[in-house]
């Protein structure tokens, strides 16, 4: 393997500044910075270069970085396999899989290939790829464009998995992913791309991957969550606050590495645990969080609660979706019952 010396973070002298950015713009800034500071980065995927991405996220990057940013055929195995091969030879490919649902035509490369490279060779070769994709339901999307599949990736040892849900995290976590020497899957959310702008600190030191964040303090119940559904959780928490119940909202951010300490500390404080994700509850990653807490032997005031998607495919009609996915009301209701000490299980978890 060629010994390609990597530039240190910030070497290209990216200025530290704060800008009001949308989530999509934050991703774009992170990509631009990565492409500037790390000459070994490549960016490719379907429609990412000349068209600037179907969501406009990669706009302007092909113009600035030329051939390092390129469009690919509709060939996800070639995209991911190409990334693995290029990474083995010193490149840092950032590959886009347009929808997480499409990763299923090429999952082999993310399960059987990328995570084995380092392990089998005992570090002689590595595959530091970053896969950017986006997940979740949006209005009118069909069953094949609505899934949350983070549980698949989190179950694969050797893959790192993060789900940014703020513009700042979209920027920070993507850079951490590119800087990380492991294969990393960063799962964005298209419903967040073009939402309200927020202040994003740019140009600071690129941190390591990992670490949960408390999004809201509270002493009555800990809600562990990740991804876009966090916004519903925060709304539900406000609803509860009006009723005198204070929920702590912990954004897990990274499913692997998982910040177990943060989870345990939070749960030890409130002694009540709810896990909320948009993915299907059954077999979902929420089960991992609940299990880790259960195994910890923390003495809880009430059984833990999971709130996620009920067992169904995701229907397209906007009116049908609340019959399947978590809503603010379902979350608030679940938390209320948790605090009251009622045993809560989504009637639909098992069918």
């Amino acid at each position: 393997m060629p010994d390609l010396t990597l530039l240190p973070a910030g070497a290209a002298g990216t200025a530290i500044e704060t800008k009001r950015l949308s989530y999509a713009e934050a991703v774009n800034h992170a990509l631009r910075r990565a492409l500037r500071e790390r000459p070994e980065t490549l960016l490719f995927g379907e429609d990412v270069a000349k068209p600037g991405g179907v969501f406009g996220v990669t706009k302007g990057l092909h113009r600035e970085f030329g051939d390092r940013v390129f469009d690919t055929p509709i060939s996800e195995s070639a995209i991911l396999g190409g990334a693995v091969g290029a990474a083995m030879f010193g490149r840092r490919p950032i590959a886009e899989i347009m929808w997480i649902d499409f990763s299923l035509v090429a999952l082999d490369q993310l399960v059987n290939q990328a995570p084995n490279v380092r392990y089998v060779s005992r570090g002689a070769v590595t595959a530091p790829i970053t896969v950017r994709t986006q997940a979740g339901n949006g209005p009118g999307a069909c069953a094949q464009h609505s899934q949350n599949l983070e549980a698949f990736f989190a179950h694969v040892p050797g893959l790192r998995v993060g789900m940014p849900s703020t513009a700042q995290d979209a920027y920070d976590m993507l850079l951490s992913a590119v800087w990380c020497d492991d294969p990393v899957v960063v799962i964005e959310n298209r419903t967040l791309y073009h939402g309200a702008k927020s202040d994003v600190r740019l140009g600071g030191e690129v941190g390591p991957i990992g670490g949960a964040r408390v999004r809201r303090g509270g002493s009555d119940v800990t809600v562990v969550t990740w991804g876009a559904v966090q916004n519903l959780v925060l709304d539900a928490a406000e609803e509860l606050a009006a009723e005198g119940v204070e929920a702590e909202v912990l954004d897990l951010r990274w499913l692997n590495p998982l910040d177990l300490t943060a989870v345990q500390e939070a749960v030890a404080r409130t002694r009540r645990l709810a896990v909320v994700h948009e993915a299907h509850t059954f077999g979902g990653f929420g089960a991992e969080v609940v299990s880790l807490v259960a195994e910890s032997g923390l003495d809880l005031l009430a059984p833990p609660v999971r709130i996620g998607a009920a067992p169904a495919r995701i229907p397209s009609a906007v009116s049908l979706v609340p019959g399947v996915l978590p809503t603010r009301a379902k979350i608030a209701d679940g938390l209320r019952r948790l605090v009251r000490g009622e045993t809560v299980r989504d009637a639909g978890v098992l069918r």
Partner: protein
Amino acid sequence: MRSDTPTLLGHFERMLLIRGVEDEIARLRTAGDMVGSIHLCSGQEAVYVGAVAALDLSRDAVFPTYRGHGWALACGVPPEALFAEILGRVTGINGGRGGSAYFTAPRYGMYGENSIVGAGAPIAAGAALAAAFDGSGRVAVAAFGDGALNQGAVHEAMNFAAVRGLPVVFVVENNAYSELTPIADMTRNPELFRRASAYGMPGGRVDGNDPDAVARAMETCVRRARGGGGPALLECVTQRIVGHYIGDAQRYRPAGDLDRAVAAEPIGRLAERLTAEGVAAGELDAIRSRVADRVRAASRLALDSPPADPATALEHLYA
């Protein structure tokens, strides 16, 4: 052999219906009655109408892509059921479960759009496989775009169908673009039908803006498949005259490209031909207004239907 005038008038009306429905969908989407990403097929109508004309929908099965409104209407799906589906109404062809990109209409021989590029091809091969056992004489049609040819599943499906001699016709809707990227940049051999020979299967190219030409080429493929001659690949060269999705500014199209596509679009062309064959302008206008009325009525009917009920959302997951 060219089709007779009544047949062509039928094609004309069907193509107009598809165009009219797509225009109405664009209006509803722009107005906010419909939501999400919707892919229109305007400009490509001749492919659907021509291909379906060669089928026997009482037994044949069509597997289109997310850009499937035209296929559905060509198969006879009522426009009101299509509008209602995209609007998420209980009267939708799938009660709103499918939406624009993934609805299915088996009663009409339209066995499901597929919003995963290429995934319908092996499923169509499976439908053809069933035909090898059920004595139905079914022919399956796998329709997909130019870009889909670069997807592994399509390759596997074509080889699988070829080696087993399955009655399936692979129809490539070559509209020159995959979303926002020209196919010319994504593969070296611009003659997509030539891929067929890799599988020892016949392949051919037809003017995809001429429903009559498509129908005749398709008839050849269907007859051959139904007779046990195995699959074929039919490349229909056409163009979208709208964006990939509603709202797509199409900045990726070079200057003049869209104008040329509009100039070549199949409905105007067929109108000219019919006029040349002696059909009176009034007759064409009568068809136009009949179709317009139908579209308007269907849209209104769909808009007046109630939304799908979330209490039903968990039904029909399992047997």
